[in-house]
């Protein structure tokens, strides 16, 4: 019988980008139990909905998370629009789709970098962050900010992208695609990367389903769960295809994200070609009375925004169920039985976003 140790990991840890804490119960080098604890960055944003006008709250929803900031305001605005019966102009839907896909590209490239950092490939991390920069530049030129976009509003979008700029974005993404292929070649083919990721953190299709996995975690185990197929925003006019891998390990999750990045570039190309002319917003009058669940596919999986209003300017309840929260049980399951040295890889392959989870 080996001696048992409890190793605390986080909330401040070199490989963890965000504050989550684990107590790892280990026997020698093997983890036999993992106890997570969160709530280091709780900000009470859900409660804030009772104190802010529902139009202004789109800005608060924007600030739930940095990487998927646009998806949060999109989900919130969709819910409010659905309650109030607002018909959003087609052009606004397409622009929303383009920004959402750009967010996905920038989140996935960032994840690739951080994952490279976790398995100790420092130069690959730098390369990934260099490639993320063109996307942030596009954000700055089209919305005025690099991370917190603040362009989504109830009834449409705040800024227009003219058609020349749309073509420019597609051209720049084509250049980015070529650069990205070079980096992704390292992730896919490099001996040391494969050695570090293959077979690590395996979760079967059945377990992934039973534990409620979402996003790349579920898709890497062979579950084709992708909310974009539901057809919110302009996705119903585009060829969305869930990216599915079957291996279920860290390497498969990495592959899913790589392929999704290329798929997102393709979706932007499609959307830019189809964007119709027209207004970008409609005037909003009245206040929401009713409730709605809005489902949006974030880079990390499906996010649910629940909005309940009672006909006043201040909403009654706002609730966000983020993908990281549903993926934590699966993460615990995967951590049990893994090697201590693989723990950073496993935690990161799930792409935890704790700011979202705690709001």
């Amino acid at each position, binding site marked *: 019988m080996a001696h048992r140790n409890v190793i605390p990991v986080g909330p401040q840890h070199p490989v963890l980008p965000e504050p989550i804490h684990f107590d790892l119960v280990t026997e020698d080098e093997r983890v036999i139990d993992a106890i997570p604890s969160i709530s280091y960055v709780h900000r009470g944003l859900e409660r804030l909905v009772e104190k802010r006008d529902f139009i202004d709250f789109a*800005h608060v929803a924007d600030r739930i998370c940095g990487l998927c900031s646009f998806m949060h305001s999109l989900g919130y605005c969709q819910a409010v629009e659905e309650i109030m019966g607002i018909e959003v102009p087609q052009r606004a839907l397409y622009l929303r789709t383009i920004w959402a896909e750009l967010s996905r590209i920038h989140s996935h490239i960032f994840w690739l970098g951080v994952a490279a950092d976790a398995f100790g490939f420092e130069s690959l991390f730098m390369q990934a962050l260099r490639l993320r920069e063109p996307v942030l530049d596009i954000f700055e030129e089209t919305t005025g900010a690099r991370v917190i976009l603040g362009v989504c509003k109830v009834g449409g979008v705040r800024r227009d992208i003219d058609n020349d700029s749309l073509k420019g974005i597609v051209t720049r993404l084509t250049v980015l695609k070529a650069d990205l292929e070079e980096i992704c070649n*390292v992730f896919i083919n490099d001996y040391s990367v494969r050695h570090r990721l293959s077979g690590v953190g395996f979760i079967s299709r059945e377990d992934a389903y039973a534990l409620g996995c979402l996003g790349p975690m579920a898709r890497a185990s062979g579950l084709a769960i992708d909310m974009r197929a539901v057809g919110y925003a302009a996705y119903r006019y585009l060829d969305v295809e869930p990216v599915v891998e079957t291996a279920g390990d860290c390497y498969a999750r990495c592959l899913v994200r790589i392929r999704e990045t290329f798929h997102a570039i393709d979706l932007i190309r499609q959307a830019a070609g189809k964007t119709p002319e027209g207004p970008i917003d409609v005037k909003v009058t009245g206040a929401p009375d009713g409730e709605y669940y809005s489902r949006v596919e974030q880079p990390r999986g499906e996010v649910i925004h629940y909005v309940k209003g009672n006909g006043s300017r201040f909403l009654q309840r706002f609730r966000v169920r983020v993908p990281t929260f549903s993926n934590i049980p699966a993460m615990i399951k995967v951590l049990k039985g893994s090697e201590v040295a693989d723990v950073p890889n496993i935690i990161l392959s799930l792409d935890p976003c704790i700011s979202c989870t705690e709001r």
Partner: protein
Amino acid sequence: MKIFTMTKTVTKNLVKGPATLMYPQKERIFTPITRGKIENAIDRCIFCGLCGRRCPTYAIVVSKESKAWQIDRLKCCICNLCVDVCPVKCLSTDNHHAPSVTERKMALHRESAAPQDDPAQG
């Protein structure tokens, strides 16, 4: 499986030089629409207080009596709602960020209408 997958990228980087900007020597270029900080052309301001009421973070305080307009740059989230709502369009977004501060009260930016402008407005 290969082992020298990074070689091409590394060689390219050696030839190309750094991807970062040498900051103090080379200024960062902001786009025309970058949301940097809110500016008020105070001569045109009618002190209606709409911006203060619209502000989601309550960063703007307008006093009609003393003809003063004040913004807390640390509270301001540069959402542009005040610029949209301004009836005389005296508010605008500058594309350079506000300078960093070491104390909260240093971020308070106050502007008052010059006395000679009062008769013109009234």
